[in-house]
């Protein structure tokens, strides 16, 4: 670390200037007849202290702070180089703490804080959501959207989007990518500019259906699939087998309107029925609630004002359309609070991980403060000499802070590197099936700023105490003891003990947290799902990307079923639009149940799946009463449904259910069977009312079918058979996520599993770091007391007594830290209680385990220094003097 060249030049010039002054003064004296030697001597005497003069003159330049900073840096770097093991430990642990915290921050930023990157003025973009009478959120129908759009004045523009998977490319080479069907003004609302070509314009923006087969692709898709070929604009590609013209490429960094997800293609929403092989009625039906609504606030309008306006428009719409919209309201939310996308489910786990990595970083800081304190104790001599030579204490403090700064900077740099490397691991938090389109959080200016703030925080937290302590260096006290081992005064042990206690407490908090999540996870795993997932293979097929209509889809499914049933070992085959315990959101229907009067705000949206015959036997869900669906339950027969036990309990007062009538989809269905309750969304859920309807009576083209194959043989063979047989039926219908059902539903416990695993890792790191801190303090104490121990031994003390001497100090620290940690953990536990399954946040076994683990580690950390104390040879110890 050298002075910048201009400052070096200036210093040299000053030196020359003063030298020339001296020469002139001397030569004038020589002219008056003095001898050369006398003249030079006299001139120098008259001149005074050259070094001091130089210093005072340099102060006039106004660069003193820089000179001192550079000096401090140079000196600090030298100190760190001289203690490589200390420096290495400090930098590595800092890199660990800062890397973990920064990585989790980059996730939080991508998912929650900056959900719409590359969108101009993103803070003014809001999500509009409709609300059911039960105040649950609802997707918006296209007619509702039109009414809201045409009547709002406080929202300057409003667009819809509908995320869906699309097959792009020719048959056999089609790639399944995620995109959005959007209204023509979508890019205006988001104020995104095209990278190439153009966005939707002119008639492409009106409401006419299936008229404009055009598409905009993302920058990353353009680069990876088309190798940034500019001539792609104007070319035709096949989407779900239909030809579409690519009109533009969105700018780099724009990844659609779903926080945390990377969407790659945008098509006009008016193409909905073509791409979904559905009727045009879907965009004209108020009950077909499909879309997400995004809007931009008019300049100067607050979100509350817009919310009030939207509420009144929605009330008006509800009044005009009682049959469909009775009681439906609407609200306006910041995008990060909207219910679409992953942010809703990620908020809690991410904040808890952030908390845990913060605890680790705090322990790292305490450790470094401790090391620096120990260090500054052994540097007392150096400091005292510097004070004696005229360095102001503030300069010493600054020196120590600069050393911490160097450590923090190196640690942050390493931490940032690890963040770049770990950034993509956000996908580990999300089950594979949902993580396909996950965004890789960028390390951008916001993340860099956060890391800089962390580094500054580390300097303050880890550096202030040692700096203040070092600055108190008492000249007389230490110089008097010169030559003896400096004891460093009485302040230091108390401070260091306090820091170790804090570390112990933080480690206890971390273990309690990890323990709670681990126990919760293991309990959740033992819950029976209500069906038998073993020996079942699964694969999913998207009917809409194949461009099928209802009849074609039915034919495909029946043929595939026949082929699979003839495979060796296969026991039964069925298919459904929803697999229980998948992470995907389920579907529901508003039901009216004969003989049941719902409460005023009772939610009558009941979750359901659409299943083929043989579904219950394939999954081994016991059929309690009535019959299964048959191949004859089609549109030419009376609509049928099968309900679960909870449905019967809740709506039919547990009475005989078969033959009862239920209204849904605008028709009356008859209950033909009752099955046992199962877990549908989470293993941890309470029983919910649920019903099934036959596939051949309600076909919706956007369905993704899951084929389920129960086999007596190896499940892997069945997994392999699924895509192979599908190819044989129609090569254009690709199978995706073919896997054993056990693997597929493992996703339902994924969050608990990840929370438990990550928390365990962070807690182990915390414990190891705290143990390092305790070890450091104990080892240092033993070294300092070597002489005392030697005297005690020489006077006849028992070696066990010496052990007790050391152990007592460690025990006090440990117990104090333990109590503080357990108490704070109990206070903090309430924050995570909502994420725990059948574990109380004050679970006694978890706390006992945390205490035991901490004690064990602490004893191990004390054992080595204590053993060394016992082995002290009195002769050597006293001679050491």
């Amino acid at each position, binding site marked *: 670390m050298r002075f910048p060249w201009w400052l070096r030049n200036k210093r040299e010039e000053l030196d020359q200037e003063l030298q020339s002054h001296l020469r*002139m003064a001397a030569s004038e004296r020589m002219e008056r007849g003095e001898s050369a030697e006398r003249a030079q001597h006299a001139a120098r005497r008259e001149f005074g202290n050259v070094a001091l003069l130089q210093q005072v003159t340099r102060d006039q330049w106004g660069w003193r702070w820089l000179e001192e900073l550079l000096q401090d840096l140079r000196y600090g770097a030298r100190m760190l180089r001289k203690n490589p093991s200390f420096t290495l430990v400090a930098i590595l642990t800092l890199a660990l703490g800062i890397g973990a915290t920064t990585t989790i921050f980059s996730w939080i930023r991508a998912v929650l804080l900056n959900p719409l990157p590359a969108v101009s003025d993103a803070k003014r973009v809001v999500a509009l959501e409709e609300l059911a009478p039960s105040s649950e959120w609802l997707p918006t129908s296209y007619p509702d959207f039109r009414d809201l759009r045409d009547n709002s004045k406080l929202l300057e523009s409003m667009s819809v989007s509908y995320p869906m998977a699309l097959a792009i490319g020719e048959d056999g080479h089609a790639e399944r990518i995620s995109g959005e069907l959007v209204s023509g003004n979508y890019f205006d609302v988001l104020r995104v500019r095209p990278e190439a070509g153009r966005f939707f314009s002119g008639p492409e923006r009106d409401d006419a259906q299936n008229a404009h087969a055009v598409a905009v692709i993302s920058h990353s898709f353009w680069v990876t699939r088309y190798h940034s070929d500019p001539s792609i604009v104007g070319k035709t590609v096949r989407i779900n087998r239909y030809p579409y013209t690519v009109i533009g490429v969105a700018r780099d960094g724009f990844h659609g309107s779903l926080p945390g997800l990377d969407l790659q293609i945008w098509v006009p929403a008016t193409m909905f029925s073509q791409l979904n092989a559905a009727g045009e009625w879907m965009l004209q039906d108020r009950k077909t609630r499909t879309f997400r609504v995004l809007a931009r606030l008019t300049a100067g309008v607050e979100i509350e004002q817009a919310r009030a306006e939207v509420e009144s428009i929605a009330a008006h719409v509800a009044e005009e359309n009682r049959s469909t919209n009775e009681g439906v309201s609407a609200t306006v939310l910041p995008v990060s609070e909207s219910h679409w996308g992953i942010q809703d489910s990620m908020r809690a786990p991410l904040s808890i991980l952030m908390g845990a990595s913060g605890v680790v970083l705090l322990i790292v800081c305490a450790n470094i403060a401790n090391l620096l304190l120990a260090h500054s104790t052994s540097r007392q001599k150096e400091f005292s000499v510097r004070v004696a030579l005229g360095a102001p204490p503030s300069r010493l403090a600054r020196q120590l802070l600069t050393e911490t700064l160097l450590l923090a900077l190196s640690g942050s740099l390493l931490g940032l590197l690890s963040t770049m490397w770990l950034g993509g691991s956000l996908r580990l938090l999300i089950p594979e099936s949902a993580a396909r389109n996950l965004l890789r959080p960028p390390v951008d200016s916001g993340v860099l700023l956060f890391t800089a703030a962390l580094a500054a925080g580390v300097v303050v937290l880890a550096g202030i105490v040692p700096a203040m302590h070092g600055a108190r260096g008492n000249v007389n006290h230490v110089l008097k003891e010169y030559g003896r081992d400096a004891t460093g005064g009485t302040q230091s042990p108390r401070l260091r003990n306090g820091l170790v206690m804090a570390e112990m407490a933080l480690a206890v908090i971390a273990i309690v947290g990890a323990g709670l999540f681990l126990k919760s996870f293991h309990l959740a795993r033992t819950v029976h799902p209500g069906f038998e997932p073993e020996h079942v293979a699964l694969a999913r097929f998207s009917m809409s990307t194949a461009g099928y209509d209802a009849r074609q889809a039915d034919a495909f499914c029946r043929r595939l079923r026949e082929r699979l049933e003839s495979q060796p070992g296969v026991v039964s085959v069925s298919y459904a639009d929803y697999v229980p315990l998948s992470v995907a959101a389920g579907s529901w229907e508003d039901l009216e149940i004969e003989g049941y009067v719902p409460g005023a705000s009772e939610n009558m949206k009941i979750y359901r799946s659409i299943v083929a015959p043989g579904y219950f036997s394939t999954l081994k869900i016991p059929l309690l009463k009535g019959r299964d669906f048959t191949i004859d339950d089609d549109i030419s027969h009376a609509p049928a449904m099968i309900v679960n036990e909870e449905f019967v309990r809740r709506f039919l007062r547990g009475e005989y259910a078969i033959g009862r009538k239920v209204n849904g989809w605008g028709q009356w269905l008859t209950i033909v069977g009752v099955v046992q309750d199962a877990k549908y969304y989470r293993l941890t859920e309470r029983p919910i009312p649920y019903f099934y309807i036959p596939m051949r009576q309600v076909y919706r083209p956007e369905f993704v079918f899951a084929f389920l194959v129960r086999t007596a043989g190896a499940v892997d063979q069945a997994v392999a058979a699924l895509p192979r047989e599908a190819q044989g039926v129609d090569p254009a219908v690709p199978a995706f996520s073919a896997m054993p059902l056990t693997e597929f539903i493992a996703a339902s416990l994924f969050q608990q599993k990840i929370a438990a695993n990550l928390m365990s890792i962070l807690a182990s790191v915390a414990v190891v770091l705290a143990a390092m801190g305790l070890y450091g303090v104990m080892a240092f104490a033993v070294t300092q007391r070597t002489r005392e121990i030697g005297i005690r031994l020489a006077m006849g003390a028992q070696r066990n007594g010496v052990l007790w001497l050391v152990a007592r100090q460690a025990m006090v620290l440990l117990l104090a830290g333990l109590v503080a940690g357990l108490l704070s953990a109990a206070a903090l536990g309430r924050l995570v209680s909502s994420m725990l399954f059948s574990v109380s946040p004050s679970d006694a076994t978890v706390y006992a385990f945390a205490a035991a683990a901490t004690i064990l580690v602490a004893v191990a950390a004390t054992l080595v220094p204590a053993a060394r104390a016992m082995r002290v040879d009195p002769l050597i110890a006293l001679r050491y003097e």
Partner: protein
Amino acid sequence: MANRYQNRIELLQGTLDLLVLQTLQWGPQHGYGISQAIRANSGDILQVDTGSLYPALHRLERQKWIAADWKVSENKQRVRVYRLTAKGKKQLLSERSRWEQLSDAMAGVLSPAKRGQA
């Protein structure tokens, strides 16, 4: 020796700047020359301490009242020569008038006391 010491007057705070600027009005000069000129022009009464002169020169330079260049002197030495800038000339005028005000005021206060002693 003692006599000479008594005749020397400690420079008042702020007056050194004025002396330097005034000296440079007669032409560019190096640091040693400036100190000699002040001594000569004050009849050996004002002695400028080098410890004050150089910090003052560098301060005035930073304020852009004077500027410095390296030149070669008559006896072939590289010397740093200071000259007055336009800004410095203005400053000199205002400092002079401030000084004259001060010395008038001092004289006004001191004169009656002199009369009383007489």
